[in-house]
């Protein structure tokens, strides 16, 4: 593993394993398209603290595009720079596309040696074997974080492609129907069931040029729903997290799901 690769690995671990880490996001050039022949789109992928200002490129090797007919497609080309990755794709069909950049479910462990926190991408059993004898605060989380967005050409379709694994966002208001000053509702499921108590933050674009971040903070109700009203048209990043005790305590202490959804609120 060369230095660059190991840095990237550390970054990936740091980003994935920590609630306080950078937000990961996809930002498509268009959310809404009208066309008879189809249109090209570009999607930026980055991890940053300022919403939609690029900072550290996300790997998009795992980017997947669910077409309106239910087929899975890959970007036609992509490029990874230091601060962002870019994927190109031709939107050829009418309907809604779901673009995801998810890893598969994995283990994230951490421990402390002399007050210094160490991280490793191993399960709890492996952690016990590898951690030094004086290590404390051994902690392992098993989870999956989703990074996703929707693009609609012509008439929207309910192409949400859920798989019943960990935390998922199921739009009740279609992502192409979110409008400033109008309420929108999303449902969150955990392992396929509506989940209460999911912490959700919704951050509007452009925090760099505002004194207050204006982040909406919500928690899902007993039906797993949040309802929010975007105060202005623009692009938003939704960040949702849910954590519970792991089922298999031999391999992890906690289980965790996360969702990063980028969407636009349209002009009235």
């Amino acid at each position, binding site marked *: 593993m060369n230095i660059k690769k190991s840095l990237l690995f550390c970054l990936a671990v740091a980003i994935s394993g920590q609630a306080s880490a950078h937000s990961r996001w996809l930002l498509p050039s268009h959310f809404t*398209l009208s066309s008879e022949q189809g249109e090209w789109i570009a999607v930026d992928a980055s991890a940053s603290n300022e919403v939609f200002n690029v900072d550290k490129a996300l790997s998009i090797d795992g980017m997947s595009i669910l077409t309106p007919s239910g087929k899975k497609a890959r970007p036609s080309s992509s490029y990874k720079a230091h601060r962002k990755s870019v994927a190109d794709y031709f939107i050829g069909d009418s309907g809604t596309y779901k673009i995801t950049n998810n890893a598969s479910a994995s283990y994230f462990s951490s421990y402390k040696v002399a007050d210094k926190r160490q991280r490793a991408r191993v399960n709890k059993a492996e952690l016990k074997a590898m951690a030094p004898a004086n290590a404390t605060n051994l902690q392992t989380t098993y989870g999956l974080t989703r990074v996703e967005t929707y693009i609609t050409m*012509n008439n929207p379709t309910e192409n949400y492609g859920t798989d019943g694994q960990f935390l998922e966002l199921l739009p009740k208001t279609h992502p192409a*129907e979110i409008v400033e000053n109008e309420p929108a509702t999303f449902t969150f499921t955990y392992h396929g069931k509506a989940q209460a108590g999911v912490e959700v933050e919704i951050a509007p674009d452009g925090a760099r040029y505002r004194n207050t971040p204006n982040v909406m903070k919500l928690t899902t109700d007993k039906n797993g729903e949040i309802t929010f009203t975007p105060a202005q048209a623009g692009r938003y990043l939704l960040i949702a997290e849910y954590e519970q005790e792991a089922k298999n305590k031999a391999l992890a202490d906690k289980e965790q799901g996360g969702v990063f959804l980028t969407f636009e609120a349209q*002009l*009235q």
Partner: protein
Amino acid sequence: MNNLLSTYASNISKIVLFAVASLLFTLSATAQASENSPATLAIKLELKQQQGEYHPPYVAAWLENSDRKPVRTLLLWRKEPKWLKDIRRWWRNVGRKDAALVDAITSATHAAGTFPLSFKATDDQQQSLPVGDYTLYIEVVREKGGRALLKQAFKIDNNTHKFTLNETAETGEITFTVTP
């Protein structure tokens, strides 16, 4: 011969009279039956002159009923399909849901000026709109320019209603008249 001709002429005039009478009768019967004869919607639309680089605006005007359901697109002035999405509200609520409708009503854009327009108050299937509450929407979007969304609530009933829509950066004063 003369006689014959005049009898013939008088027969023709009787037939014509009968035809006119029956036409009148039919018309008045229709009018009486008629919540069904559509009201007239007259719009005097003014697209403002603009400074600098100017592209004629895309314009859509449409009606939504009291359930906010679009019932009729009155006009659509536009260019290629790729720009339809920029007529944001019309595209979201009307255009993208009905490709056939978009094909049926399209017409080219117009440069700044005043346009007296008149429409029958029917739905997209040419059926008279029933008495009730409606909203007229007019959306004007200029490439490399501004956007204006105007709306005016109105009633279709047996009365005449006149409205004046205030000027915006894209439109001058617009008058809107509903005549039963």
